[in-house]
């Protein structure tokens, strides 16, 4: 087992929780997880991997740590799952703690490595299985676990209380009315075409994004609503801690909100992991093969609004601008061209990145890694030096990140590596450049 990269991180979620573990509990939990919980593909993957190491070059942690093999995807699996299986679950608390460090904080489950594997092995699945084992043993980074607890209580990520949610929507509606006449956030409008859902940080820290969507929806003439009740948050950190029961409960609430409101589709704000939770991981646990209500990511939604002329661009954003491509919507869903379409439609000087599309690097914040909190921040930003170099090479002054995790993660990278760039959501650009019809002008 490798030591942590550079310095010991203190995290009670790991340090304290392993003290309660017994060899029997560890062994029983692991064997139960591997026999009752793991899918058949675990066996296939274990028998298929030829240990070629081609996945290594895909990993931003590996590339950012001078190609230290401990940070390669296969290295991470070797240090954790392979060892667990080899030892038939007879590992100790320290081993589990290191498993959590590797799986929860040094892998973004971004799936770039799967594309480099000659057999397409889903390395992220293997690391998520390690996370599941850690979570079943109660060993999860403190900040991530606190977020999971918030999800379990409030069905949102940020401990937002029910009254705080509604109140925030109501004052954001008022703020939006200062910009656009009669802008609304229609609450609980049964039968609306769209249920718009967001992630917890929007009402908590970034409420102006809710005002922005009220402006955009009003100008575009959309028939939309937001639930006043639980189910409004589309994010899902339990998916990443390994608490799949809570993950499922959160996703069920999200879709049942849409059922209750009789919405024909869910449009979600700019977040990548939320898309993964709502479209892939969440529905599957609940037995839905596909989301029971179509889920449209903000990038696709804005693409359609601009393409169909529902939003017209009055003037283009002038500063040189580049993008961060959220893994879960670009590699995971192929929205890279739509993202470039909306960037070019709204920005004068769009500078593309390299590598790009599904080959782009992860922001290093996703997969629950940024939710592991301040103790792991340094390891996180140092794990993505390649991203800093990639962004710097564009010469852009602004990075658009249509994902909350990307947004926060790229901000940290910009600051740490002193890139001198600003980070924006696409909606901030759109509100700035779109045409407001005369009859809606205040």
């Amino acid at each position, binding site marked *: 087992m490798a030591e942590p990269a550079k310095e010991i991180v203190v995290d009670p979620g790991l340090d304290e929780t392993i003290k309660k573990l017994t060899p029997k509990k560890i062994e029983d939990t692991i064997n139960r997880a591997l026999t009752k919980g793991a899918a058949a593909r675990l066996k296939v993957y274990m028998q298929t991997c030829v240990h070629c190491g081609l996945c290594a070059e895909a990993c931003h942690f590996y590339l950012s740590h001078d190609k230290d093999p401990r940070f390669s995807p296969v290295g991470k699996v070797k240090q954790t799952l392979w060892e667990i299986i080899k030892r038939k679950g007879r590992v100790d608390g320290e081993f589990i703690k290191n498993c959590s460090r590797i799986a929860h904080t040094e892998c973004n489950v971004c799936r770039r490595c799967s594309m480099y594997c000659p057999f397409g092995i889903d390395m992220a699945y293997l690391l998520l299985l390690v996370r599941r084992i850690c979570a079943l043993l109660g060993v999860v980074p403190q900040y991530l676990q606190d977020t999971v607890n918030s999800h*379990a209580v409030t069905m949102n990520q940020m401990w937002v209380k*029910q009254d705080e949610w509604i109140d925030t929507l109501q004052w954001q509606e008022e703020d939006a009315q200062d910009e656009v006449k009669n802008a609304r956030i229609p609450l609980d409008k049964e039968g609306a075409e769209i249920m718009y859902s967001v992630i917890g940080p929007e009402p908590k820290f970034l409420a102006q994004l809710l005002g922005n969507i009220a402006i955009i929806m009003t100008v575009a003439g959309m028939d939309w609503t937001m639930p006043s009740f639980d189910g409004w948050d589309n994010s899902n950190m339990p998916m990443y801690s390994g608490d799949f029961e809570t993950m499922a*409960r959160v996703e069920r609430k999200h879709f049942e909100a849409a059922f209750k409101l009789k919405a024909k589709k869910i449009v979600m704000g700019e977040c990548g992991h939320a898309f993964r939770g709502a479209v892939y991981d969440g529905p599957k646990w609940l*037995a839905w093969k*596909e989301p029971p209500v179509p889920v449209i990511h903000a990038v696709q939604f804005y693409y359609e609004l601009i393409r169909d002329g529902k939003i017209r661009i009055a003037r283009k954003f002038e500063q040189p601008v580049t993008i961060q491509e959220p893994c879960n919507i670009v590699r995971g869903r192929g929205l890279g061209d739509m993202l470039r379409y909306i960037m070019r439609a709204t920005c004068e000087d769009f500078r593309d990145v390299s590598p790009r599309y599904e080959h782009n690097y992860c922001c290093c914040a996703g997969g629950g890694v940024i939710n592991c909190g301040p103790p792991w921040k340094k390891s996180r930003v140092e794990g993505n030096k390649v991203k800093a170099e990639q962004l710097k090479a564009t010469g852009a002054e602004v990075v658009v990140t249509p994902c909350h995790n990307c947004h926060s993660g790229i901000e940290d990278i910009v600051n740490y590596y002193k890139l001198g760039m600003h980070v924006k959501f696409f909606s901030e650009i759109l509100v700035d450049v779109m045409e407001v019809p005369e009859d809606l002008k205040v």
Partner: protein
Amino acid sequence: MQSMTELESWDWETKERLVADINGWRSKFPVIHECVASNDGEKISAPVRTEDGRFTACVNGESWENTFEKLWSLRFGPDDRLTCLVREDDQWTVAVDDETWGEGFEYAWNIQFTPDGKSIAVNVKGENGYGIALNNRTWENGFAEARDFAISPNGEFTAAGVQTKRLGEGDIFGFAEGIWTVAVNGKPWGKNFLNVWGIAFSSDSSKVAAEVRVGEYEYAIAVNGTPWNKIFKCVWEPIFYPQGDDVLAPVQVDEGWTLAKNGELIWDRKFVQAWHQKFSPDGQRIAAVVAPEFGKWTIAVDGSSWNRTFRDAVLPPVFSPDSKRVAAIVKENNRWTVAVEGSPWVEGFDMIWDPVFSPSGDRVAAKAEKEGKFYIVLDGKIGKQEFEALWSPIFSPDGKKLLVRSIEDGKYYRRVIPVEEI
């Protein structure tokens, strides 16, 4: 849900009445929000903004005398009293038929009614913290937080998930000790849990059940604070048997999901998913939404699922009044329709609302939407008339007529239409 006596008291003779021309409201109010229709169809209302920027409710063209800083969540209760949430002087309260509750709150939300509509309750945040206000009377005890709630059938009790201790930021160990429980009329159960969800009252209002999380990966149902002696991998919302204190809930075991009564499995068959269990009106049958296989959804009645499954979704089952038939909203290939006893209607829709059985159970009607227009669908056949807006149809007590509440060209009509003329 209206009683037969109430239904019989409604006007089932007047074939058509233009109740209100909503177009005319536009000259009086700069902003009109979504309309709501009374159950008996006699009234149409909407939150409106007045010329001076205040809000009120407009009912059949007449606005309430009171105006407010804000007004939302407007709806007719089961007894057709018009109810909403209003804010004045930064205090929120409930307004019912133009009269506000005496007490104001820092915030109030989530209006709920008893089935007869006589009792009204809301979540509130006040000086004492979080609690519930029932008929203008607030719990004496306030909590660090109270989320959602259930109201007892007799209208005397409310029960909510409450946080009994404050939690420091990021205190995962404090959370793991259990700081959540259920409080009934402000009195918390004696035992705390990691989480409580899905609160339900017994039919005689004397007992309360809820999903509880007793360990991070240990779930049970608790009744009046005492968890079942069986722990499950996961559970969903419990309901009480119609008679007595027995509780029924979906539970997850190693082989899949099934239903358990007081912790004992009652269906042999296990499913990939099971939820939304319902009792028939006579209390003899149980229906639930199930997935017999991954990605295949249907209804199971007493443990046996319909042969036909649906790929996208199946919504909660609806029993006929005679308990013999079951219908449910189903969705496949992004088209919504209704399935009755496992047979889907041929026509698919952009959206469909809950199926409504006739009193004898032999006919099923539903409101449906197609290409932006609304229709009454009767036994799978689309009605002749299309509407701009529509509310779910209601059968007359003899089952021969339907009450149709609709908007056409901005005018709200109440119609009573013989079923054969739909």
